[in-house]
C-alpha cells in the first residue's frame, strides 16, 4: 500500500485524488503547517536565504574582503564570460560529476542488490560504511599516497607485473577520474545503504511471483527491483549530483587544481578566487552561476524522473 503512495512523483506533488479528499480540512492544515514550519523557516531565512541574497549582491561588486565592497554592476559576469579558466572549470566539473555519479550510483545499486540477494550479514553492512566514517581530507591523503608514482603500493604492484606505472593524480587526463574514484570509494557504502533501505521496502511476494515465473537474476533486477526502487533512486541521484558539483576537499588536498587546470573544478575555482586571490565579488558571481546551474539540473531531473513512476500495482 505504501507503494501506491509512492506513485507520486519522486520530488513532486500528491496526486489530485488525494488532494480532493482533504479539501474540507484545508484551513486548519495551513495554520498547523505554519507552526510546524517555524523553526525550519527561521533556519532557512537566517542561514541560507539571507547569505544567498547577500552573495547575489556581492556578485555585483568588487570586494577584496579587506575593504568594503564597491558596486560595479555586471562587470564580474562579463569578465566571467571571457574567462577560459571558468569555462574549463565547467567542463572539468561536468567530467567529474558524470564519472562520480555514474560509477557511484551504478556500483551502489549493484552493491545494494548484492546485499539484498546474497547476504544479510551485519558485518558486510558495517564494513562498507567504514570509509564514510573517515574524514574526506584523510581519505584523500591516504589515496594520494597509495597512488603515488614512486612510493605508492598500487604503482609498485603495476611495476611488479611489468605494467607501465601510472601518474594517477599527476596525469592531466587521469587526475579528475582518479579524484572521482576516490570519492566513489568513500561514498559507495553510504549510498548503497540508502538504496538498500529502499530495496527492503519492496514486498517479498513480488520476488516470489518472479521466482514462480522462473525469472533469472538479471530479469528480476530489471523488471522488478529497478522500477520499484525509483523514488529512492531519484532522491539519491538528486542529492549526489548536487553534492558532486560542489567537490572541493579532495582537490584541495591532492592536486590543488592542477596539473594545469585539469582538476580546477568550479567550486575549487570559486574558493581560490575568494580566499587566495581575495576577489570575493568575482567569486560570488561564479557562485551565483553555479547555483543557477544546479537549480536547472534539479529541475531537469525532476522532469525526467517524473515520467517514470513507481508501479507496483500491475
Amino acid at each position, binding site marked *: 500500500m505504501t507503494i501506491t503512495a509512492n506513485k507520486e512523483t519522486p520530488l513532486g506533488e500528491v496526486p489530485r485524488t488525494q488532494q480532493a479528499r482533504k479539501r474540507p480540512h484545508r484551513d486548519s492544515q495551513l495554520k498547523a503547517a505554519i507552526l510546524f514550519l517555524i523553526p525550519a523557516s527561521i533556519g532557512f531565512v537566517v542561514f541560507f536565504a539571507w547569505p544567498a541574497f547577500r552573495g547575489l549582491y556581492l556578485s555585483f561588486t568588487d570586494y*577584496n574582503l579587506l575593504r568594503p565592497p564597491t558596486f560595479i554592476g555586471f562587470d564580474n559576469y562579463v569578465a566571467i564570460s571571457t574567462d577560459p579558466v571558468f569555462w574549463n572549470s565547467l567542463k572539468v566539473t561536468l567530467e567529474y560529476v558524470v564519472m562520480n555519479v555514474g560509477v557511484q550510483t551504478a556500483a551502489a545499486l549493484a552493491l545494494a542488490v548484492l546485499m539484498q540477494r546474497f547476504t544479510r550479514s551485519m558485518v558486510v553492512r558495517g564494513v562498507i560504511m567504514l570509509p564514510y566514517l573517515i574524514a574526506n581530507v584523510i581519505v584523500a591523503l591516504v589515496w*594520494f599516497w597509495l597512488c603515488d608514482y614512486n612510493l605508492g603500493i598500487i604503482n609498485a604492484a603495476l611495476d611488479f607485473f611489468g605494467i607501465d606505472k601510472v601518474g594517477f593524480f599527476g596525469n592531466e587526463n587521469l587526475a579528475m577520474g582518479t579524484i572521482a574514484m576516490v570519492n566513489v570509494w568513500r561514498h559507495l557504502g553510504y549510498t548503497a545503504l540508502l538504496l538498500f533501505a529502499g530495496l527492503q521496502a519492496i514486498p517479498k511476494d513480488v520476488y516470489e511471483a518472479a521466482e514462480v515465473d522462473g525469472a533469472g537474476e538479471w530479469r528480476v533486477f530489471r523488471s522488478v527491483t529497478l522500477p520499484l526502487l525509483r523514488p529512492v533512486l531519484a532522491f539519491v541521484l538528486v542529492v549526489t549530483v548536487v553534492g558532486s558539483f560542489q567537490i572541493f576537499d579532495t582537490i584541495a588536498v591532492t592536486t590543488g587544481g592542477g*596539473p594545469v587546470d585539469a582538476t580546477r573544478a568550479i567550486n575549487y575555482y570559486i574558493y581560490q578566487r575568494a*580566499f587566495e586571490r581575495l576577489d570575493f565579488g568575482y567569486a560570488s558571481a561564479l557562485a551565483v552561476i553555479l547555483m543557477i546551474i544546479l537549480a536547472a539540473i534539479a529541475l531537469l531531473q525532476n522532469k525526467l524522473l517524473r515520467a517514470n513512476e513507481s508501479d507496483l500495482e500491475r
Partner: protein
Amino acid sequence: MKTNRVAILTLAAIPLVLTGCSAASADSAGGTTLTYGLWDANQAPAYKQCATDFHEKNPDITVKVEQLGWDDYWNKINTGFVAGTNYDVFTSHLANFPEFMLNQQILPLDDYIKADGVDLGSYQDGLADLWKGTDDKQYGLPKDFDTIALFYNEQLTAAAGLTADQLNTLDWNPDNGGTYEAAIAHLTVDKNGVRGDEAGFDKKNVATYGIWMENSGGADGQTQWSFLAHTTGWEPTNGAWGDEYNFDDPKFQSTIDWWYSLVEKGYMPSFEAQTGIGWSDQLTAGKAAMASNGSWMTGAVFGAKSDSFTPALAPTPTGPSGKRASMFNGLADNISAGTKHADEAWKWVKYLGSIDCQSVVADAAVVFPAIPAATDAAVAAFEAKGIDVSAFTTQVDDATTFLYAITDHRSDVSALVTPAMEAVMSGKKKASSLSGVNEQVNALFK
C-alpha cells in the same frame, strides 16, 4: 518513544549548559591580553618562552601564543580581518604583505620605532627594507630569514663517488648545466644500476633520481629555480614594488628550458611523477639523491635520519655570474589594524625584534633569527645537534642573496603563472610560452 525523545532532548540540553559555563572566561584580572599567531609548530615552544619572559618584564601584559598549520593559519587571518577577530600581532609573510599593507589592515610602526629608538640597521642587511610599504613606512621588524641550499643523501653521493668538497663547489650554466648537471646525472641510477651518465642508461626505469622536482615553482620558484635563474643576471621584476615582470627574458626562459631538460634526460621526475608525496619523504625513501629547498625544513629533514638516509647540505651552485644566488626571505610580525591594544602590541613586537627573544629562538635551532648575533647563536645550536648549516649562511656571508620580489597583485600573478609553468614542466609547452603569460601578468598593472 516519548520517553526516548525526552531523554534525548535532555541530553542535548547539557551542551547548552556547558556552553554557558565556558562563555564565562573573561580577561584575567587587570592587564591586557594580546593574541599572537604563528604557523611553525617547531618554533612555537621558543615563542611561548619569549611570551613568558616578556610577561615577566611587563607584568600587565599577557601574550597568548597560538599556532596553526600553514593553510589553516591564513584561513584564520583572512577571516579574522573580515570579521574583526584577528590576532593582535601575527607572523606575516611577504607573499601577503602587499595586500595587507595596501588595504590598510596592518599598522605602520615608524612613530613607535622613532620614539623607542629601535635601530633598523641591527638586523641582517636588506631584511628591514623588505617590510617597507609603498608609502615608505616600516610595517614590521625583521624576525628571521631563510635561504636555499641543496639537501642530499650522503650515502647515495658517497656511493656515487662524489665528495662533499665537490658538492660544495658545483657550477652551473643554462647551456650544458656545468658540474651541477654532471653530478645530478651521475647520481641518477636506473633499475639496473646504470648511472645517468653511463651507456645503457634506461631513462624510462629510474630507481633514484639525481634531483627531485617539487612542483613547478609557480611565479617565484623560491626553492625550485630562482637560485639558478638569478645567477644569469635575471631580475624577476623591475625593482621592489615593481609593476613589470620579466618572464619573457631569454635568460629566464633558458634556465627553465634547461631545468626541464633534466626531465627529458631522466635525471628528474616528470611533473606527473612528482605529484604526490612531498620531496623530503621522497628523499628519505631514496627516490631522489638531492633536492633544493629552504632552511626552514632543516629540522624535519635531519630528523628523518635513518639507516639508509644520511642528510647533508651543500650550497647552491655558482652560475654564469661567477657567484651563487639564493632567495632571501625575511619574516616579520605585523600588528593588525583592528587591534584594541596598539601600544601593548608594539611592546610585544619590539620584544620579538630584540636580541632577548631572538636568542631564545636561535637556541631552538629551527630558523635563523634576523639579528646577526642571534644568527650565529642559531648556527651554533644547529652544530650542537650535529647539523652543519654553513650551506645556508654562506649566502648571507658572501652577500649572494636576492630579495623576494614584492609587487601588488601577487596572488593574481601566481594564479596566472602557475598553470603556465606546470604546462612547461609537463612538457606540453616550451618556456617561450611564458612570454605570453608575462603579457597577461603585466596587464594587471596597467
